[in-house]
């Protein structure tokens, strides 16, 4: 008797009441086509001058969310429908977050490339240049000098602090340093610039003081906490067995650190330092305040104003001369140079990390 009921078509109970696997993709394509067709009709009727691509993508995606929710609601029920809706929204959020990155890099390349490719951009300064021509050599040299000195100041202090925190630090001082290093990562860059200015204008009693070294000090204030955090993380990864083996052989503690702990974590520390350089090399505000701007070359960190690449970009944009397009082109070219430097630093840092890091269990 009961076997009679089986004569209805056999369904797979595991997939019953579910949408087919690729249905979200199909719904997305369908909604884009529907909305696109709608906009095409509007375009062909002459109501708009061009086909509305942005509108198609935007309203198509909205329609997709609604349609997918409704389909799923009637086939799979309310809980699955909500799950599918959230999956769609989360994915859309990710794509939306990428749009500025793509737009920004795209525009910088398109706008910056013409001036970037002129031969004088890397060989000349802006001295006596009005309108088109000239280059950013003074700014590039200034950026390398200022950032280089900032690195020279920050790395020893940051690394020693990280060693203190991982190898020596116990108790209140260590906890205080950890807390305030974290707090220091949040100092606004302009405040660091104001600090360097306040310090040196008091020391030298010169209210109009501008020099490259001040910029290095300001950048160090921003860079030290980043170096401490990243080095500390790396030093913590060194297995304790290595330290204990060294102690067992009678090696003093400081030699253990110098000869065992540091070499083991060197790749990670180098990576952290390079990433921290890439963080501060683009800082504009502190250098605008304490290093100032100039159109000439300056190789002396300790006297006179010193141009840097970010300030060059800002200055070219903010004070455009008669032939304003030339200034804007140079600003974009400077921005492109900055992005190339930052991306290279990041890329090399990741390569160093991947190639030289000791292989841990993961």
């Amino acid at each position: 008797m009961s076997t009679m009921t089986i004569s209805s078509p056999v369904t797979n109970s595991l997939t019953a009441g579910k949408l087919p696997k690729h249905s979200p993709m199909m719904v997305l394509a369908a909604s884009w086509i529907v909305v696109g067709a709608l906009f095409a009709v509007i375009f062909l009727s002459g109501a708009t001058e061009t086909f509305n691509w942005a509108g198609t993508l935007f309203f198509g995606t909205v329609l997709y969310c609604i349609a997918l929710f409704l389909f799923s609601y009637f086939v799979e029920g309310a809980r699955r429908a909500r799950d599918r809706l959230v999956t769609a929204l989360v994915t859309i959020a990710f794509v939306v977050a990428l749009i500025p990155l793509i737009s920004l890099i795209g525009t910088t390349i398109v706008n910056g490339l013409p001036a970037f490719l002129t031969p004088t951009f890397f060989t000349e300064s802006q001295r006596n240049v009005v309108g088109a021509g000239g280059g950013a050599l003074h700014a590039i040299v200034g950026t390398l000098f200022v950032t280089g000195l900032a690195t020279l100041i920050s790395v020893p202090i940051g690394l020693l602090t990280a060693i203190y925190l991982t190898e020596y630090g116990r108790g209140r001082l260590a906890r205080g340093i950890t807390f305030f290093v974290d707090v220091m990562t949040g100092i606004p860059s302009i405040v660091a610039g104001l600090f360097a200015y306040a310090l040196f204008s008091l020391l030298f009693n010169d209210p109009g003081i501008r020099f490259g070294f001040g910029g290095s000090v300001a950048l160090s204030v921003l860079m030290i906490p980043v170096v401490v955090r990243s080095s500390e993380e790396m030093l913590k990864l060194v297995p304790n067995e290595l330290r204990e083996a060294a102690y067992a052989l009678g090696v003093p503690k400081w030699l253990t650190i110098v000869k065992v702990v540091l070499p083991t974590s060197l790749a990670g520390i180098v990576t952290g330092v390079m990433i921290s350089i890439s963080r501060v090399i683009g800082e504009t505000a502190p250098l605008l305040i304490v290093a100032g701007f100039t159109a000439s070359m300056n190789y002396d960190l300790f006297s006179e104003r010193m141009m840097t690449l970010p300030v060059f970009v800002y200055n070219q944009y903010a004070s455009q001369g008669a032939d304003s397009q030339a200034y804007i082109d140079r600003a974009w070219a400077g921005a492109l140079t900055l992005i190339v430097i930052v991306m290279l630093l990041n890329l090399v840092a990741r390569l160093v990390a991947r190639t030289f890091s000791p292989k841990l269990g993961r």
Partner: protein
Amino acid sequence: MTTAVDRIAIKAKERPGDRIFSTATVVAGSLILAVLAAVALFLFVQSIPAFVAPADAFKGDFSNFWSYVAPLAFGTVWSAFLALLMAVPVAIAVALFISHYAPRKLAQGLGYLIDLLAAVPSVVFGLWGIGVLAPMVQPFYANLVEWFGWIPLFAGPVSGTGRTILTVAIVLAVMVLPIITAICREIFLQTPVLYEEASLALGATRWEMITMAVLPFGRAGIISAAMLGLGRALGETMAVAMVLSPNPEVIFQLLTSQNSNTIAANIALNFPEAHGVGVNILLATGLVLFVITLIVNMIARVIINRRKAFSGAN
């Protein structure tokens, strides 16, 4: 007698190298605390003349320092608040996408992609904001004022250039997004896998698993991530200085060409030409900004540190 023997701790011989090295590390560590104290001290010393400056020392129509800094402080907080309003939901969604939705193999690469946004210098964001974003959003602003002008926030007249506080907030949101995302991602990944598997095994959908296991576990982390983002947005200078068309008043409207400036942008715009007590006034506004961000960051760090498992954003 045996107790006396037990008490003798075995101590390693202290060599000169040991002493020099450990002293150097302590000095370096203390130097950081000293620098932070010096920042506050020097800014304060240089700010004293501003607190007692006469009314004619200020640019514009102000009777004393506090009436000068109030609109700037308002602009700073208002723009940062708007930026967070946009950035936090998107950042949480992006972090969830990377930690729980994206295919495992792709997840790390996608994380790098978002981190790249954090590496872009702020002056480039400024150029982009004024050259690309502002002209792009201006027509939308015009429509918003036309249709929703009766809402006080969207009241006209609309800015013809798009250089309004809303544009600034969008740029700021893009800039703080990677910071908030990075921290949220770390925290979401730390959710105990057993909780997640248990809720999935009980028949929860993925979204129900996230609302029941991941989000409650990460709530403190999300709050502190948002506050760190707030600290960054409060202190951001160049993007605001380049994009905003400022006005020294308290203005709530989002879409007009009159906008409250922020402290940081005001300093960057006026510092190169400032002289005499004008420099001290700008330094004093910097001190106000420093205090605001310090408080925000300290609260965020206290919340993070309360959760020992979490190791840090960097």
